[in-house]
């Protein structure tokens, strides 16, 4: 597509000459590299609660971030005003990080701009759709949840969409653009029985338009699942406390990988030698059954991107192959300093944030075992199928993830549901305890939000059914 088709040119009068000027200003004190990140982001949200449409919201974010790199140093400034004087001021502020007197010289921006490919080709962006269509989805969810069981007393269904235009221009003469759609529906249910209350939650979505909300992502399917989880909890016993054998179900339990190894393999922590995984490339960190990848190229997935937030194409990156650690997730800064190839993992929350290495869609490849056989092989253990959030201490390697739907396994059979409990383990060693990997890889339904250094971004995770020989379960029942 031609440069003049970009929204920043059409709507905001940014010219190729402007881009060259801004980059020259950014390098006016001698930085090694500079880039501009233009962003125009529109979000809509609608909330249904107590059977009425309580609120509708539109949010518009427009701005440009200017980054200057000098050695290991990063200078950053941004402006939510795209007029020339403001962007030049931001460029000069970012330039301050470098302190040699030399000038950056002239920079040539190529036209046309490149767009590498399209992983989310859709006819209509969610921002352009009628509010009434979105409201109908929420009403469907509300009715389905209430119809599921009379004990469902509260339903909160929300719809969120995002349409994000980005234009990234670098002092190396690269310019690329993208339009990134993202939609999601969440359904939260509160059930009441004999004065006791329980909650259930389910959500789903991806980088697509409203046509994504069919089959298991249909509002009524999400609602029933949310209601089912709330009702199930009335029967839940206290969760066990202590180490035990654990079987994780397929899909969202992949949050294990995200916390246990994903963050620890982000290049910045390894470049600075602050990760528990520092120096472990080439070593065995998991059982032979484990192959783990981060893949930003899966069409329509929540964690997918045509290009990362530094303008580089996303990849499929093998992190662990048959148990052996292969490498790290790179952004531009770390890849240069570590002399390692780019992996397309430089991501940021928005124009007001500095990019850093982040995950996209992170999952374990399917193995050979039938899921039922894995469960049959456990004498006494925990079967965890649905999770809330997780967190990791990169440096010590200790991570947690919290089960919100789990059952006891007794003599090879899934028996009583147990209350939510946090599981805690050690990232560099937990995957060595994987003793079976199912043939049923599933990605999550599109709800992942990953936080790092105060920046949140959408991600996805996936897992086949796996068995872990021993992990500590944080219940109350000794």
């Amino acid at each position: 597509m031609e440069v003049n088709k970009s929204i920043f040119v059409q709507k905001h009068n940014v010219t190729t000459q402007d881009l060259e000027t801004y980059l020259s200003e950014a390098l006016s004190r001698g930085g090694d590299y500079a880039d501009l990140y233009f962003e125009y982001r529109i979000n809509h949200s609608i909330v249904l609660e107590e059977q009425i449409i309580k609120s509708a919201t539109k949010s518009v974010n427009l701005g440009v971030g200017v980054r200057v790199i000098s050695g290991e140093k990063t200078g950053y400034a941004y402006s939510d005003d795209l007029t020339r004087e403001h962007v030049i001021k931001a460029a000069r502020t970012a330039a301050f990080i470098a302190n040699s007197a030399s000038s950056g010289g002239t920079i040539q921006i190529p036209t046309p701009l490149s767009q590498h490919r399209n992983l989310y080709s859709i006819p209509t962006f969610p921002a352009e759709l009628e509010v009434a269509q979105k409201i109908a989805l929420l009403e469907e969810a509300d009715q389905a949840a209430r119809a599921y069981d009379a004990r469902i007393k509260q339903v909160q269904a929300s719809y969120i969409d995002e349409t994000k235009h980005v234009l990234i221009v670098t002092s190396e003469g690269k310019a690329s653009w993208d339009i990134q759609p993202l939609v999601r529906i969440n359904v939260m249910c509160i059930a009441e029985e004999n004065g006791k209350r329980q909650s259930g939650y389910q959500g789903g979505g991806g980088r697509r338009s409203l046509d994504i909300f069919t089959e298991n992502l249909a509002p009524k399917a999400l609602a029933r699942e949310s209601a089912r989880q709330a009702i199930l909890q009335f029967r839940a016993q206290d969760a066990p406390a202590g180490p035990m054998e654990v079987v994780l179900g397929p899909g969202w339990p992949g949050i294990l990988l995200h916390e246990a190894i994903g963050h620890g393999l982000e290049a910045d922590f390894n470049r600075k030698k602050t990760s528990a995984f520092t120096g472990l490339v080439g070593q065995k960190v998991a059982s032979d059954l484990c192959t783990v990848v981060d893949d930003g190229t899966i069409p329509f997935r929540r964690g997918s991107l045509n290009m990362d937030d530094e303008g580089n194409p996303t990849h499929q990156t093998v992190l662990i192959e048959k148990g052996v650690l292969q490498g790290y997730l790179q952004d531009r800064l770390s890849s240069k300093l570590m002399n390692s190839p780019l992996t397309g993992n430089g991501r940021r929350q928005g124009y007001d944030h500095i990019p850093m290495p982040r995950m996209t869609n992170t999952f374990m490849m399917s193995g050979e075992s039938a899921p039922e056989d894995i469960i049959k092989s456990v004498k006494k253990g925990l079967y965890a199928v649905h999770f809330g959030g997780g967190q990791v201490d990169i440096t010590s390697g200790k991570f947690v993830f919290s089960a919100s739907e789990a059952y006891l396994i007794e003599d090879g059979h899934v028996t009583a549901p147990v209350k939510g409990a946090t599981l805690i383990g050690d990232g560099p060693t937990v995957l060595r305890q994987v003793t079976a990997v199912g043939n049923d890889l599933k990605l999550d339904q599109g709800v992942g939000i990953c936080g790092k250094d105060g920046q949140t971004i959408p991600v996805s995770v996936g897992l086949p059914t796996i068995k872990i020989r021993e992990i500590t379960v944080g219940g109350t029942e000794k």
Partner: protein
Amino acid sequence: MSDLQSIAQHAIERAKKSGATAADAMIREDDTFSVTVRMGEVETLKEAISRSLMVRVFIGKRTATSHSSDLSDAIVDQLVDETVEMARLTSEDQSGGLPAEAVLREGSLPDLNLIDRSWDSLTPEQRINLASQTEAAALSTDKLITNSDGASFEYARSRVALANTIGFAGKYEGTGAVLVCVPIAQSKEGMQRDHWLSAARHRHGLGAPEDIGKKAATRAIRRLGARKIRTCQVPVVFDPLCSRSLLNHLFEAVSGSAIYRRSSFLIDQIGEEVASSVVSVIDDARMPAGLGSVPFDDEGVPTQATAIIENGVLRNYLQSAYTARKLGSKPTGNGSRSASGVVTIGPTNFYLKSGPYTPEDIIGSVKRGMYIVELIGFGVNTVTGDYSRGAVGIWIEDGKLTHPVHEVTIAGNLREMLKNIEMVGSDVTFVGSIAAPTLKISNMVVSGE
């Protein structure tokens, strides 16, 4: 650039013109500076001025909201018009509407001492130095400190203006800074990271770089050689930053929005004993120079001090205009606008009042137990109170701290945890709008080996 108040005024007038029966608009302007120094060198330096407009319109009892970072007249007009259109598509909500006029006492807003203009006299080099000195202090504390995730100095000056169509027009501004240090200690058993920080609105309130760096280093070093322990049921002592996370859960449970949704373990319990008698919690928006202090909330309601728990008895929930109407109560000045402009409930200075004991007294009272220094994960269910989180701590034997512990969880239920608070420390530590002192809980399950 037009003045913030006139942009807010313009937005609500535009809303009326396009058919809104009522509207309010809030504008924030943040002038921010942050620097991170790592291993003695500047790693990142970031600076910007950003603005955002949040508009809420009503057509009778229907409402819609919007947010924009682009404040040019044409964009604001178009967005306000669209917001009014969206409001036509939402439902009638009997509890909707601006806070009643009676609640908006015009005029004498209190001076809460939120601004310190002397920050302006700090040059960028001096600001960078604050971070450098902090990190240097950590690195020089002990040779066990071998690495660092850096030290950061962050400063913001924020201005807020709010106007509505029933006559409220107010503004305030404040300054604030944070100095934080994240050193890494290493021994043959592995690496451990910890941090310490100080936050203040005024320069004199910010901790000395040397103290912050040394304390952070000491905290990292004491975690070296951490090991698992056997699963047990013991008393636990929370350090002030961990106690703060407990107060965060309590805040969520007393928010009017959780109460009307019946999604809190504290519904229907006003006047009842929900905590041990040594526990008193308050939300005090008028604390001079408080990190969470504001003269009026994000709906223009004057703020106040609200007793949450007095000697163990639950007194009040925190309310916005909407939740107050839903629950037949009064707004408490805790209306808070999220980034998208929707009004939710926010804390001001929400803290557990200090008690008589030093942290040493409290640790000294424990025969066998754990002193918790970090909690990770999200295993807290506010609906049921069920609690299960990853923990790092130091084992207590005969009233003395012995060896560090990690890869364990602590679990219980918030209902019982509040009732089992046995001792309250005198060391309330404010690093944000929620704060607490050292606390001892008589009994929790620690899950380990």
